[in-house]
C-alpha cells in the first residue's frame, strides 16, 4: 500500500502535508521550525494558552533537501482537535470575558475545519506532547481515521527536552507507526525527523 502512495506522490506536484494533533502539542512550533530551516521565515504565532491556532494555515512550496534527496510540499498547520472548549479556561488565563468567548467560538470553528480537512491530506504528521497521556481518545480518533483512509502517518513526540517526556510511552501506544521524538522548540533530533519525512512520502 505504501508503494501505491509513493507512486501517487511521484505524479503529484503539490503534496498536502498536514500537521494534526491535540491543542498545545506543538504543531505550529514544528511548522515554524520547518519553515525557518528551509525558507528562513516563521509560519504562525505560538502561545502557552491552548487554541492559539484557530484557522488553517498553509505554507506553499516548502522544499527540503537531505542526503541527496529532495521533497516539495504544501505545509498545512491545523487548529488542535479537542472534544471540549470552555471559555472560562481563557478567563482564568487573564482574558476579558468578551475576548475569551470570541476565542472559544473561533476555536470550535477551528476544530471543525481541521476535521473537514483531514480527508484531503496526502500525508499527516500527528504532533503529540510527549509529556501528556498518548492514549487520549482525540489522538486515537485522528490516527484511526487516517488509517481508515490509508493516509500515511508519522507520529512526532514533541517536547522531549522536558523531564516529564515519555517517548517510550508514545511508542507503546502506537506500535504500528514510526514515532520520532523531537523538540521543535530547540530543534533537537530534526535530522531524524526529516529522514522520517522522506520515508513517509517518497
Amino acid at each position, binding site marked *: 500500500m505504501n508503494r501505491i502512495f509513493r507512486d501517487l506522490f511521484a505524479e503529484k506536484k503539490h503534496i498536502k502535508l498536514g500537521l494534526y494533533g491535540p491543542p498545545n502539542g506543538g504543531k505550529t512550533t514544528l511548522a515554524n521550525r520547518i519553515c525557518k530551516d528551509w525558507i528562513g521565515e516563521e509560519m504562525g504565532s505560538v502561545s502557552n494558552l491552548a487554541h492559539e491556532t484557530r484557522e488553517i494555515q498553509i505554507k506553499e512550496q516548502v522544499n527540503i533537501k537531505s542526503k541527496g534527496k529532495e521533497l516539495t510540499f504544501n505545509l498545512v498547520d491545523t487548529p488542535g482537535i479537542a472534544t471540549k472548549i470552555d471559555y472560562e479556561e481563557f478567563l482564568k488565563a487573564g482574558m476579558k470575558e468578551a475576548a475569551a468567548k470570541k476565542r*472559544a467560538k473561533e476555536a470550535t470553528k477551528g476544530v471543525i475545519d481541521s476535521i473537514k480537512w483531514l480527508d484531503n491530506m496526502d500525508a499527516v504528521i500527528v504532533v503529540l506532547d510527549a509529556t501528556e497521556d498518548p492514549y487520549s481518545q482525540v489522538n486515537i480518533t485522528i490516527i484511526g481515521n487516517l488509517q481508515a483512509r490509508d493516509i500515511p502517518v508519522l507520529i512526532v513526540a514533541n517536547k522531549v527536552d522536558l523531564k516529564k517526556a515519555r517517548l517510550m510511552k508514545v511508542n507503546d501506544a502506537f506500535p504500528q507507526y514510526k514515532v520520532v521524538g523531537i523538540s521543535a522548540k530547540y530543534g533537537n533530533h530534526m535530522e531524524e525527523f526529516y529522514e522520517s519525512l522522506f520515508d513517509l512520502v517518497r
Partner: protein
Amino acid sequence: MVTLRFVSYHEIENLSSVGRIRKLLNIAKEDKIVVLQGKLRKEEEKELIKATMEEINDEFKGIELAVIDDTDDEAKGLAWVKQGVINQLLGDRKGLTIIGPASIVKEIKKDPKKIELFTEDFRRRKKKRL
C-alpha cells in the same frame, strides 16, 4: 450526583450515523454520562467531535470521550484466529464507549485497557472508576 445512562448496542444498531451521534450527544447534553456497549465507527467518532463543536455554547462545554477496545493487537496463533472469529461475530459490539459532558467529567484516563473517569467531585478527592 452523577447519572450514568447505559446504552446497549441494540439501541443504536439500526440508526444512521447521524442518528447515533444525535442520540448519544443528546444524552450527554442532559448532563448524563453515556456508557455505550460497543463502539462507534472511526468516522462516527470524528463526526461526534464535529457535532459537539457545533453545539458548544456558554452552558454546554463539550464532552470527554473514551473508547476501550479489547482487541489484543499482539495475539498470535490460535488466539489470533479466535480473536478474528469474535471480531467477525461481534463487530462494533465489542468494547465500551464513555461519553461524558465536560461540565461533569473533568478527565478520562486510559491506560490503555482501563478507564479512569474523574468527575467534578475529583477536586474534593473523589474518583469514579469504571
